[in-house]
């Protein structure tokens, strides 16, 4: 049976008088890789932050992993949701292994178990644990730091991972490598749901099982990459896809 892991019911969010999200309803199944595509101000990051309760909806209902967020203990809930952000946010005063071990420690794991997990995760994201575990974040490159960011989010083996434009501050080559790896990771860790916010169309279409296109706090289209690219539902999506085609034309010209 397919299980719904995230469900939004008529969610509305205002910051003061500014209505960021009008009336948002959608549901996401367990194990899906969802990418959310939108320009800045489209409400995509706010949507992501409402999933782990960093922002609270003004009205409407959000259900995550069978819990209504209004009644859930958010601290406990967050320990089982991975969170990766663009600015990475590795704690500068902690070593790499301490950074990865933050949430396991909050959950009261013993140190031996944490050390093993850190070693596993570093291997999973392609970094040598002997070399990196005791380093500090600033001694790593941006790409390596974001790998640690992903490893930290995976530390408690959460069923749900949230990514907020994680790769947009990285250079093109590093970004492409990481995109590939995240996609592989999703295949490897079957049953984990990835919710990935981005403003990069290629990234959204490449990674997502389904792509949610957002504009002005509303969903323009929520469908497979194939459908979004070939049967754009609204004018906005059509224009968005148009920009990619224009880019292609540019490349053809240069040839």
């Amino acid at each position, binding site marked *: 049976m397919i299980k719904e892991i995230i469900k939004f019911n008529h969610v509305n969010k205002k910051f003061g008088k500014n209505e960021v999200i009008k009336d948002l309803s959608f549901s996401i199944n367990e194990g899906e890789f969802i990418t959310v595509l939108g320009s800045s101000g489209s409400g995509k990051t706010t949507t992501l932050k409402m999933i*782990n309760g*960093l922002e609270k909806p003004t009205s409407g209902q959000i259900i995550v992993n069978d819990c209504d967020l209004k009644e859930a203990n958010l*601290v*406990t*809930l*967050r*320990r*089982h*949701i991975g*969170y990766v*952000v663009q*600015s990475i*946010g590795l*704690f*500068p*005063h902690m070593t790499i292994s301490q950074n990865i071990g*933050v*949430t396991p420690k*909050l*959950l009261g794991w013993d140190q031996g178990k944490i050390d093993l997990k850190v070693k596993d995760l570093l291997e999973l994201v392609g970094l040598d644990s002997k070399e990196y575990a005791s380093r*500090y*974040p*600033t*001694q790593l490159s941006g790409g390596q730091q974001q790998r640690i960011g992903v490893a*930290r989010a995976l530390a408690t083996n959460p069923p749900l991972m949230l990514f907020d434009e994680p790769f947009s501050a990285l250079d093109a080559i590093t970004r492409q490598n990481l995109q590939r790896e995240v996609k592989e990771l999703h295949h490897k860790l079957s049953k984990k749901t990835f919710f990935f916010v981005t403003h990069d169309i290629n990234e959204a279409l490449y990674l997502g099982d389904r792509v949610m296109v957002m504009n002005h706090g509303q969903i323009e289209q929520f469908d497979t990459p194939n459908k979004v690219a070939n049967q754009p539902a609204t004018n906005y999506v059509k224009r968005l896809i148009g920009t990619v085609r224009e880019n292609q034309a540019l490349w053809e010209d240069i040839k």
Partner: protein
Amino acid sequence: MIAQIINYFQTSSNEYLVAVGQHLYISFLALFSALIIAFPLGYVGSKSKIFSGFCQTFAQVLRIIPSLALLFILIPYIGTGIFPALIALVVLALPPLVVNIILGFNEVPKVYTEVGIALGMNSFQLLRQVSLPLALPHILNGIKLALVEVIASASLAAYIGAGGLGNLIMLGLGLYKMQYVVIGGVSVALLSLISMLTFDWIIKRVKNSDQRNY
């Protein structure tokens, strides 16, 4: 003069050490009490803009009250001795502490607190594991400023009978024995200087271990 100073140390070094001991005791006691008051104020102040504005204005007002005046104002209410001196010194130590604690917490980049919350920390865990370590250089700086000020002002506490190196200065002034004044004054200056250098060294170490200076 120098011969007199040497003579003093030869005959009364015990008395001198007691004075230094009293001086340090009252200074650190005042600093510690002030910290206990300032920390919650600073923490709350960093959460609320209105409260922080209030704290900072209040701190500025406290700063312009001359410490000697404060000491004498307190005499009719609490009498003389260590306790009123302590109150005056705490009042003196509060402004630099509160201002720097607020500054320290406000300077912690928002992304770290947000990630901390997102990783499942409650407010206490967030404070202990993220905000406090990252605010520490500023907080230590506040402690340094407060301590230097308190050590210097503690010499005035002798006027209301709290003892310390101020006694030596007062004695010298009263008996017109300049060597006492010099010994007392220089000792106070040295204590201030040493505590300042020690804290500068600690702050440097804390910052280095953060690896933020790469």
